């Protein structure tokens, strides 16, 4: 037995490593037969005893200490019916052998290995069913969301203001610095990349249009939305998911609290309010970046840059960019909340859902952006 006073693993020397000798039907054990020290001894023992027939005696004279792993290693290779004829009786060994013996009849059930073709069709089938289920769940989620939005509009007092403001702070305000910084760099890079070519063509003043239209129409809205998705779609999914795992959402339903009203609506509204504001911040950051690079590399004075911005770019690209934002916000918030609500009981599904929330919302942002690009093209905007 591993009594701690004679089993100090920190200073065990190699001379009491587990070992055995098997001679004249006598198996002699020596050293420390404990799980941490056994190593390959069980296999060596099995190999040595394999061809032997009949009874085996056991000599435990030299045995230091032994635990269930050691006893298990010995017991499983000795003949079952006349398991042990002990020469030197070890109290711990006997006691543990009694414990181990009943477990020896056990043989590990072989897990049926699916054949390749079967496995292929199985995974295809599972994929199809899962996709259909996802689509169905997405539909019901959208339906319930519309219903509870309608109810909130009819009874505005049911809107939960405290969580709404808290989420607006978490998801919106604290994202301002990173959003501004990122579009600042994008605006700077736009001006930088354009500067060379525009300078050789002699129309360096067009850098203002390049930066202005690029940032206001596309980059501001898309970058703000992608950052919002990375920060908040994941946060929404993780928050709702861990509430689900903790049965908090179950508790809400038995208390007859509408979980859409309590959890989803504040998040969707917060996104609808904050993402346009973040887009404005992103636009300003991008324009400042472009302005600084134009000033230093292209010698376009800031006053000239701003004047040109007002005259040649105008407000239209800004409104075209802003028009897409509410849809982005809706896509991000609902994707995050929907995946949070779909978390199962285990940790893996939480990770899975958070990942999917982020990936899907970024995918939706890019897809909507492309659709809008086509739409505005047709409308000649």
């Amino acid at each position, binding site marked *: 037995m591993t009594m701690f006073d004679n089993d100090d*693993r920190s200073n065990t020397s190699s001379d009491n490593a587990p070992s055995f000798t098997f001679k004249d039907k006598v198996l002699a054990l020596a050293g420390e037969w*404990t799980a941490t020290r*056994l190593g*390959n001894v069980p296999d060596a023992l099995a190999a040595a005893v394999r061809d032997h027939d009949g009874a085996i005696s056991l000599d435990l004279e030299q045995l230091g200490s032994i635990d269930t792993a050691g006893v298990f290693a010995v017991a499983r290779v000795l003949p079952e019916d006349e398991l042990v004829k002990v020469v030197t009786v070890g109290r711990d060994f006997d006691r543990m052998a009694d414990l181990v013996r*009943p477990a020896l009849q056990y043989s590990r059930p072989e*897990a049926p290995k699916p054949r390749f073709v079967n496995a292929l069709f199985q995974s295809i089938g599972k994929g199809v069913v899962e996709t259909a289920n996802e689509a169905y769940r997405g539909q019901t989620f959208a339906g319930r969301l519309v219903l509870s939005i309608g109810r909130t509009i009819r009874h505005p007092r049911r809107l939960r203001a405290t969580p709404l403001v808290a989420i607006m702070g978490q998801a919106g305000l604290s994202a301002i610095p990173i959003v501004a910084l990122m579009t600042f760099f994008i605006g700077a890079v736009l001006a930088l990349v354009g500067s060379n070519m525009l300078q050789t063509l002699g129309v360096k003043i067009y850098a203002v249009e390049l930066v202005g239209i690029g940032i206001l129409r596309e980059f501001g809205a898309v970058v703000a939305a992608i950052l919002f998705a990375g920060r908040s779609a994941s946060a929404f999914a993780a928050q709702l998911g861990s509430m689900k795992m903790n049965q908090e959402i179950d508790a809400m339903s038995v208390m007859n609290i509408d979980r859409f009203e309590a959890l989803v609506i504040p998040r969707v509204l917060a996104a609808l309010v904050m993402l346009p504001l973040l887009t404005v911040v992103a636009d300003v950051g991008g324009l400042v970046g472009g302005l600084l690079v134009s000033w230093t590399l292209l010698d376009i004075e800031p006053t000239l840059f701003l004047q040109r911005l007002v005259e040649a770019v105008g407000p239209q690209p800004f409104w075209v960019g802003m028009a897409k934002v509410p849809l982005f916000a809706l896509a991000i918030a609902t994707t995050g909340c929907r995946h949070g609500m779909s978390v199962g009981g285990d*940790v893996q599904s939480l990770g899975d859902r958070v990942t999917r929330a982020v990936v899907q919302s970024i995918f939706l942002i890019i897809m909507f952006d492309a659709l809008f690009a086509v739409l505005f093209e047709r409308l000649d905007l």
Partner: protein
Amino acid sequence: MTPTTSISQDVPESELPIQVRGLRTSFGEHVIHDGLDLDVVSGEIMGIVGGSGTGKSVLLNTILGLNTPDAGIVKLFGCDIHDAAQRRTAENRIGVLFQNGALFSALTVQENVEAPMIEHTSLPKDFVAALAAFKLRLVGLPDEAGAKQPSELSGGMRKRAGIARAIALDPPLLFLDEPTAGLDPMAAEEFDQLICALRDSLGLTIFMVTHDLDSLHAVCDRVAVLADKKVIACASVPELERSDHPWIQKYFNGPRGRAAKATANESAK
């Protein structure tokens, strides 16, 4: 002989797997333990009781080294658990059953039990699998449970699997956090029997936090009572029943305490 105070002076240090001296823990202004002493003697089952907020879980976490105390020393097998260098020598000699099993949800039950063996030994893979299956049988789980995910098990089975993982490396010291909480009375009784059987067959020392009065009567050799920021008494259940401390009186001689005692006497007959 079993000592009746929280400090066991006449027992040599080598026979004390757990030694706690002058422990002080606080969270901000709130002092949980102050000058707490406790010894656990090799081979005994020590129960810890105390009202809510007396810091049973904090004590367990501090002894396990998950919590750093403000003052005092915790020694497991003579090694200071809050000293990084000494900690390693003690670490492989303890097993812990957390309240809900704390099984790794990404692994099957069988893999959960194999995990510490694979991590800390160089045993062959087949042998580890067989040994893990044996440990699962030892704690009374059916053979088919091994292939399941922890989320597919009932609460009682999860606790059994947790014990199987805790004893995977045959640690001489086992910590149990509310082992019978959330189990039905029959399952709780079986669990008590399992704890006793493990102690008897593996010679374990067991430290358990529990509120189950039946469990205290059935398995604990000694019970330490936490109150007033320290261990106010540490003795066997019959001795504690004779104590005149008001909280201990209320705890052991209240209606539930008397019922548990009656059951314990019944089964002793």
